[in-house]
């Protein structure tokens, strides 16, 4: 066999994806991305069905074929399914599929983490679906305001389905965010510097950072509410020093960035399509990057605009009102960049562009009603009415669904090797567009005519009858449109005209490979010279990683700014661990749901064991650790200190930090604002014990730092005894924390004590994880898997100790030093 044939055969063997039941072990990003998208589609249909039930009931006044209880479950699940199980997973799936192809990588940086995320999403989604089937679905609205969602006013397991199920699904979102973030920064192909990245990649980079910071507040809120419901802890109950508004703040701290997290990838699709169909580069690449960065950050400063009617002082509201309007500026910059690109090009019309046009009309109108809503007096009239329902569907469907369909049609030749066509596609678009506008345009007036949200029926004769009927008819038209689009996509995927290479003459890398692409994407990783690699005649002049003679999956590791290759990253292959661990967490979720706490404790321990075993098997093993790298010009990632794993750990710690900052916010918020918050006479915490914990953690971090300094010089002799010392310190610190937790805390009677408990448990969790990781690393050192020759895991555990140290000191300050200096203890 020739050199090429051997290489191809080796590649196919190394990158093989099994079928049948072994398909559960597949970790390749293309498969995982497609799974996210297909599962997302199924949930979209479920959410759509729920929407049709709503419109059927509201078509006529005084009609209640669904009782108020069922109706409340239906609209709550419509929102929950669409927001958590469709919108973000669908876009993350698209990103997971596309990003490695666009940046010239063979896979994402953490393939098994992505697979794990998918199973968490699937199992969490199934748990939520179970609630619908059992008619035990949550019924307090998709944002679950308390006290309505508390155990007092929503007894029964309904709200728990939401709190546990959605948190489980969010694991998938956060892991995907971490994976995309690290992949974009560290696995780009040679020469793809930041300034040469396709715009879509910039959008996903910003979105991933937003996910890392934006999801933890909701995770915290859900944990607190579940603790309140199941354990009676006081966080949101006024009488015991809590405040229902804390939930609203935590929810919307997540909720507002969430809608931009949904919008930005879709806008990234538009930024990709427009230059291709205008047949020229985008106008204002830098301006668009600036706009995306700005949107990402400023969207975190808008959340109170969902709370303009709770009675916050006008000056505070004004900050959020101004910021909410400010965010329209970067959005406008993007829209006008697109317009300018079309204006200065020779546009070609096509089915994707038809959907882009639909996006423009709908989203611009939705954005304008958003600016209206940002104005406080107007907000006071239309908040919680159908006007807001109309606005949000305009921006979500216009800003996410239309670009998504445009992108699917555009990338259809890549997914399936076949072209879409205008014939049926045109009908699908117009039915959707007309149906959508029929449903939601008149709904603005329905709200202005006084119809509140979330009402299971309404009186005749208020002027709402005809608008509601129109909306319901429109809903059915849109339903037909969606069906037609699905049929169109399915028939073209199977029977469409075969596509030639790069049918749209696009300039991004994903079009420079075979369609549909092989599992490994690129036979040879190219060097990129400009922003239009597919048009670059010199693309294949310099290539990397031509073959697989190591017999393992590899991709290039690059410098985050310049894109210059720095190392070869060894990627993990197919494995049962993601599936098994996700299954264990699902079992944990269900046991918490049915409140079988001893069982839950056992499963939690089992999960920790499984996750540790997974991380063990993921880490370097003997053959690789001992084998010297073949004559590659680049070192393997495990021989250095700067691995993707370190970046992933840092990203995960940022997410944890966001959770921690939300906790601090909760503490200060309740202290300042909760009507009946009380401090006890003295702090229940033994501050010497907490100080000891801080000092121990700092000592551990210091010891790790010193051993790392030595390792960098090649001296690994001190590793074993340092790790023994750190492990010992860790165990003592954990013991001290457990002793602290035995303080007399009245967690069900006082919010003050409940918050302290949660913060200490958080610190204990981090100290515990750091100690466990140290113990595992100690064993690995003894077995020779970690040494001066393969040191990359050492900085990772060091980061865990540095973070634990940081939060320990902050807690000492915030829980003891600051309140004492303020005079409350």
């Amino acid at each position, binding site marked *: 066999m020739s050199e090429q044939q051997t290489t191809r055969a080796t590649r196919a063997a190394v990158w093989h994806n099994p079928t049948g039941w072994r398909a559960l072990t597949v970790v390749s990003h293309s498969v995982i991305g497609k799974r996210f998208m297909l599962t997302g589609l199924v949930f979209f249909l479920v959410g759509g069905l729920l929407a049709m039930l709503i419109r059927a009931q509201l078509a006529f006044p005084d009609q209640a074929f669904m*009782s*108020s*209880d069922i109706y*409340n479950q239906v609209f709550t699940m419509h929102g929950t399914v669409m927001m958590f199980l469709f919108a973000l997973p669908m876009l993350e799936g698209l990103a997971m599929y596309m990003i490695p192809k666009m940046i010239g990588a063979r896979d994402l940086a953490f393939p098994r983490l992505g697979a794990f995320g998918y199973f968490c999403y699937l199992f969490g989604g199934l748990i939520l679906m179970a609630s619908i089937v059992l008619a035990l679905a949550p019924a*307090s609205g998709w944002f679950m*305001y308390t*006290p*309505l969602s508390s155990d007092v006013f929503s007894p029964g397991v309904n709200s728990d389905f939401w709190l546990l199920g959605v948190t489980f699904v969010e694991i998938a979102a956060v892991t995907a965010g971490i994976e995309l973030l690290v992949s974009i920064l560290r696995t780009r192909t040679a020469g793809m510097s930041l300034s040469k990245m396709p715009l879509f990649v910039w959008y996903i980079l910003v979105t991933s950072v937003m996910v890392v910071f934006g999801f933890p507040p909701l995770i915290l809120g859900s944990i607190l509410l579940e603790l309140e419901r199941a354990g009676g802890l006081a966080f949101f109950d*006024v*009488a015991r020093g809590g*405040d*229902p508004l804390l939930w609203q703040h935590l929810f919307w701290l997540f909720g507002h960035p969430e809608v931009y997290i949904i919008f930005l990838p879709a806008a990234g699709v538009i930024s990709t399509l427009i230059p291709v169909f*205008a047949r*020229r*580069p985008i*106008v204002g690449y830098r301006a668009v990057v600036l706009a995306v960065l700005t949107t990402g950050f400023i969207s975190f400063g808008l959340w109170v605009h969902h709370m303009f*009617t709770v*009675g916050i002082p006008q000056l505070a*509201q004004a900050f959020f*009102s*101004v910021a909410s*309007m400010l965010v*329209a*500026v970067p959005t*406008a*910059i993007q*829209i*006008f*960049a697109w*317009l300018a690109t079309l*204006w*200065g090009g*020779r*546009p070609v*019309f096509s089915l994707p562009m038809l959907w882009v*046009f639909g996006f423009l009309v709908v989203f*611009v*109108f939705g954005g*304008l*009603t958003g600016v*209206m809503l940002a*104005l406080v*007096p*107007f907000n*006071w*009239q239309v*908040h*919680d009415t159908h006007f807001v329902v109309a606005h949000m569907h305009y921006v979500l469907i216009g800003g996410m669904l239309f670009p998504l369909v445009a992108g699917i049609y555009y990338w259809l030749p890549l997914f399936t090797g076949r072209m879409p066509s205008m014939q049926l596609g045109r009908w699908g678009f117009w039915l959707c567009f007309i149906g959508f506008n029929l449903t939601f345009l008149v709904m603005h007036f329905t709200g*202005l*005519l*006084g*119809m*509140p949200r979330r009402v299971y029926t309404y009186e005749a*004769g*208020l*002027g709402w009858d005809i608008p509601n009927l129109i909306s319901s008819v429109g809903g059915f038209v849109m339903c037909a449109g969606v069906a037609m689009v699905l049929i169109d996509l399915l028939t073209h995927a199977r029977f469409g005209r075969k596509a030639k290479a790069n049918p749209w*003459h696009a*300039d991004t890398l994903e079009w420079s490979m075979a369609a549909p692409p092989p599992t490994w994407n690129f036979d040879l990783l190219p060097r990129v010279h400009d922003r*239009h690699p597919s*048009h670059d005649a010199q693309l294949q002049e310099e290539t990397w990683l031509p073959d697989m003679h190591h017999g393992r999956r590899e991709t290039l590791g690059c410098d985050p700014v310049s894109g210059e290759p720095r190392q070869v990253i060894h990627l993990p292959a197919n494995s049962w661990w993601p599936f098994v661990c996700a299954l264990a967490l699902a079992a944990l979720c269900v046991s918490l749901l049915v409140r079988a706490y001893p069982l839950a404790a056992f499963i939690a321990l089992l999960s920790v064991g499984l996750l540790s075993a997974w991380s063990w098997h993921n880490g370097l093993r003997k053959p690789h650790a001992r084998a010297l790298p073949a004559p590659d010009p680049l070192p393997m990632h495990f021989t250095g200190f700067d691995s993707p794993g370190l970046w992933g750990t840092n990203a995960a710690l940022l997410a944890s930090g966001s959770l921690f900052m939300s906790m601090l916010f909760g503490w200060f918020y309740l202290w300042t604002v909760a009507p009946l918050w009380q401090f006890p006479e003295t702090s229940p915490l033994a501050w010497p014990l907490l100080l000891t914990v801080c000092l121990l953690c700092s000592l551990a971090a210091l010891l790790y730092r010193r051993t790392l300094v030595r390792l960098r010089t090649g001296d690994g002799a001190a590793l074993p005894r340092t790790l023994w010392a750190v492990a010992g310190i860790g165990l003592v610190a954990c013991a001290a924390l457990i002793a602290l937790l035995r303080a007399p805390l009245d967690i069900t009677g006082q919010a003050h004590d409940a918050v302290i408990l949660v913060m200490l448990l958080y610190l204990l969790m981090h100290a515990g994880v750091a100690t466990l990781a140290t113990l595992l690393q100690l064993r690995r050192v003894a077995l020779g898997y970690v040494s001066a020759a393969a040191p990359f895991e050492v900085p990772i555990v060091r980061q865990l100790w540095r973070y634990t140290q940081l939060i320990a000191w902050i807690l000492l300050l915030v829980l003891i030093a600051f309140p004492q200096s303020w005079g409350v203890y």
Partner: protein
Amino acid sequence: MHPLRDKPRVGLFTFAVTAVALLSGCEGSQSALQPAGPAAQDIALLWWWMLGTSAVIVFAVVGLWLYAQFRRPPPASSEQPAPEQAGMRHTAAVDRIIARRWLIGGGLILPTVTMVVLLAFGIPMGHRMLPLPLPEAPLRIEVTGHQWWWEVHYPEQGITTANQIHIPAGRPVDFHLASADVIHAFWVPQLGGKLDMIPGRTNVLRLQADAPGRFRGQCAEFCGLQHARMRFTVEALPEEAFAQWVAARQADEARPVRDAGAPSAQVFEAHCSQCHSVAGTPATGGPDLRHLHSRTLLGAGTLRHDGDGLQRWLREHQHLKPGNHMPAHDHLDDDTLSALVDWLRRQQ
């Protein structure tokens, strides 16, 4: 007199729209586009301006887009540009100028100007709506939201009622809003914006009706099973009529139960008095029933109070408003109920 109220154009416009919107019956309208007070009028006017401007912007942007997409391509030029430049319509220099114009004019200037104008009008408008101290203190009404009815107190006048509020027309009224259970929201669209009723807090909403009339209100924060049936009415009376109403109610507060010896009084005592009251001390747990027969609606807006409305309500309330916190009265037969209804009527 509010400066923006006098524009006849506004009145005509609103009339035209609401005529199309099919006006409701005698409880008044719930439309924010039929303002009957200064706050609501400001907001309605703001809405029409914002709608007009938005329509212009949408048409302009969409028009430009369609033009850019579909206009005739320019004649082919003789140079051979690079593949990614193949679609360029202009030279690089002209292109840069055009780009700058679009990005700065459309992307920067348009939204900034719009924003500044909106805030310049909106912030003072919002400020005018706040319940700031006035030289003459406004009437104070305390409203507490319950699952799914409204408890109303006039603390200075010593009046308690439920689900129906009387106010004087032509002067501001401060509503002190609280909640007994979950979060509700108090909203009278014809008079102004809404404000949430949050347990543990009291929020103050200032409203004013310009002229006498009847206005509808509805709970506007999802509060559970019967959120859809948590309505109330606001009746604005001329100053003298309001004073008379207050005097009549104050007289009623002092008077004892009539027909205390009737069998219905015992029925009331046994089955209703834990939560309701018809005289003497105010109710705890349920709507106060004093002056029940002046109310036009029953069950916080569930059905009309006419003919046998009350009887129907007592008999079927768990079918009309399932899940409401009043226990079913299936064990009371129709005759008992009808006697009770008559007895309640006599408490007038």
